């Protein structure tokens, strides 16, 4: 996980970490297998993403299948399973009609000298609050309780 974050930083990827991994940064710990990323929707940034993955995963040829025409077009979600086999990445340029890199509030966390851009608890709560999965609703409830969040947005 850390080698990916390190590569994201070194390549200058513009992203926001969301999902359970982001919750982990905020001290709400539960098991997850994936890393959810909202990335800035631009061709240049998608190239940074590919470069970062190549750096982290030894030039896995599958990385070339990550296409900006998909992420900027009809397929705003791309799932990448790296050869390490221990996790996978959900890379998104938008969620629904409202959430994107530009609209999700984030803060920078540091782990082992690596700077990671993580969605704030409030932003995570807003993303999870209205979803249908019980797991997401459970996450939303935990965020609300832990950070005393209000339903005023």
């Amino acid at each position, binding site marked *: *996980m*850390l080698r990916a974050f390190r590569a994201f930083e070194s390549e200058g990827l513009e992203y926001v970490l969301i999902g*359970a*991994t982001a*919750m*982990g*940064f*905020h*001290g*709400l*710990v*539960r*098991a*997850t*297998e*994936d890393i959810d990323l909202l990335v800035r929707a631009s061709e240049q940034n998608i190239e940074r993403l590919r470069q970062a993955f190549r750096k982290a995963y030894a030039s896995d040829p*599958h*990385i070339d*299948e*990550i296409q900006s025409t*998909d992420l900027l077009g*009809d*397929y*705003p*979600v*791309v*799932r*990448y*399973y790296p*050869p390490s*086999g*221990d*996790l*996978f990445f*959900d890379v*998104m340029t938008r*969620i*629904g009609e409202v959430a994107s890199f530009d609209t999700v509030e984030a803060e920078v*966390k540091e*782990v082992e000298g690596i700077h990671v851009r993580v969605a704030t608890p409030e932003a995570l709560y807003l993303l999870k609050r209205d979803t249908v*999965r019980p*797991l997401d609703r*459970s*996450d939303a409830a*935990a965020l609300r309780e*832990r950070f005393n969040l209000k339903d005023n947005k």
Partner: protein
Amino acid sequence: MPIQKFRSVEEMNAAPIRVVAAGNAFERFARHCGRFRLIYPRTYPRGVFRFRSFEEAQAARERHNVGLADHSIFPNAD
């Protein structure tokens, strides 16, 4: 709370979220995920898959997990 006790796996999975101090949160999170992978190793496909929406991506993951559910003692992980 160093020890949590549960009467069943179902009861354990109903309380999956542990709150830890922010200072070492990521380390605790990474260790927790590492334990999960040891307890319940999964086999993933390789490569890149594309989806028209986040919901479509989640549904694909659920289908994959259902295929593994018979062996799951930790169904609340995503």
